[in-house]
């Protein structure tokens, strides 16, 4: 008796052994199953359809060879890796060098990581907000339905949003531990702390949004501008300049997150009912 599930499982394993990444194998599997369905409607048995669809897709080693050719990095990837390398290098030098300095002997490595990561997350958010503003202005001036800048921004944000989330989260967690060492409590409820929560929350929302709907290019500039506002108000709010904006931001982000969760739940419900 032909077992479709285990046949596909072993076919997947062969492709992965051939050097094809699981994400690409998922796509090939969707193709294989479409082909099987079509062949079965033509009167083939499930086993025959599986064999024919597999042959149609090609051998694992040949496909693997083609996919491996794609792995050569593009210039943009080198740039991103270069910047990340520089950041990590700078952080390493700081951690190694600063504690040996007499004047700066009091600086805690934990504090360095906290300040370094969180500042980078703030700067990243600010830069993207500027890019977003530029995109919105460009759109208003050129009135073009499609714009390569929007697309470029969306591709960059796919890297930057999760990276920003990791940075902000690291900054937040190390900050808590440092506060525990220095002040005896993990959380003091300061505006500065709530500002960091707001920035982390925004990065988390951006990451989830991007993971869920990669195709949505056009709302991105608006999203980055909103992120910039979060960064801006968190920064000034922390200094007490703009009052208690950080609390408001965290509340706003929680409301947006709750609203998104409700929409998602309703959509899933509708799908189940359909």
């Amino acid at each position: 008796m032909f077992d479709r599930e285990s046949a596909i499982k072993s076919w997947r394993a062969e492709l992965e052994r051939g050097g094809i990444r699981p994400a690409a194998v998922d796509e090939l599997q969707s193709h294989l199953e479409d082909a099987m369905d079509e062949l079965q409607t033509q009167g083939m048995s499930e086993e025959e359809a599986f064999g024919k669809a597999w042959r149609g897709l090609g051998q694992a080693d040949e496909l693997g060879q083609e996919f491996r050719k794609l792995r050569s990095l593009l210039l943009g990837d080198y740039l991103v890796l270069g910047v990340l390398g520089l950041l990590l290098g700078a952080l390493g030098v700081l951690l190694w060098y600063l504690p040996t300095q007499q004047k700066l002997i009091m600086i805690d490595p934990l504090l360095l990581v906290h300040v370094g990561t969180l500042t980078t997350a703030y700067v990243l958010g600010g830069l993207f907000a500027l890019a977003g503003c530029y995109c919105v202005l460009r759109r208003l001036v050129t009135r073009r339905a499609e714009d390569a800048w929007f697309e470029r921004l969306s591709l960059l944000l796919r890297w930057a949003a999760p990276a920003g989330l990791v940075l902000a989260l690291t900054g937040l967690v190390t900050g808590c531990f440092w506060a525990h060492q220095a002040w005896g409590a993990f959380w003091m409820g300061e505006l500065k702390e709530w500002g960091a929560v707001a920035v982390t929350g925004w990065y988390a929302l951006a990451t989830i949004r991007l993971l869920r709907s990669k195709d949505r290019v056009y709302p991105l500039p608006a999203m980055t501008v909103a992120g910039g506002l979060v960064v801006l108000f968190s920064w000034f709010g922390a200094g007490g300049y703009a009052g208690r904006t950080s609390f408001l931001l965290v509340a706003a982000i929680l409301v947006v997150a709750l609203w998104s969760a409700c929409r998602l739940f309703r959509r899933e419900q509708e799908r189940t009912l359909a």
Partner: protein
Amino acid sequence: MISKELVAASSEAIVLSILERGENYGYAIIRQVQESSGGQLEWTDGMLYPVLHRLEKRGLIQSRWKQGETGRKRKYYRLLAKGRRALEEQKKQWGTVQSTLNSLWA
């Protein structure tokens, strides 16, 4: 039957042209190629995907996973502005090749 080399050379232009008509997924693209060429252009189905991934990496197309009516998830591709420009360029180049050959064979 068309030679492998010619199939490989024309693959990007063909894929971009199909996506110019609207968002589509791998299996349907292959079927459309077979239909449009009357079965003359034969691709190994799997070989389409490295082409699609390369085009996406170059920022010419963009993909997203979407659930179809049958409940099966498929990866849909759509043409981006950069891809549209690349396609215009390809059309010019293939047009030049075609008119050159036409004039030589006339």
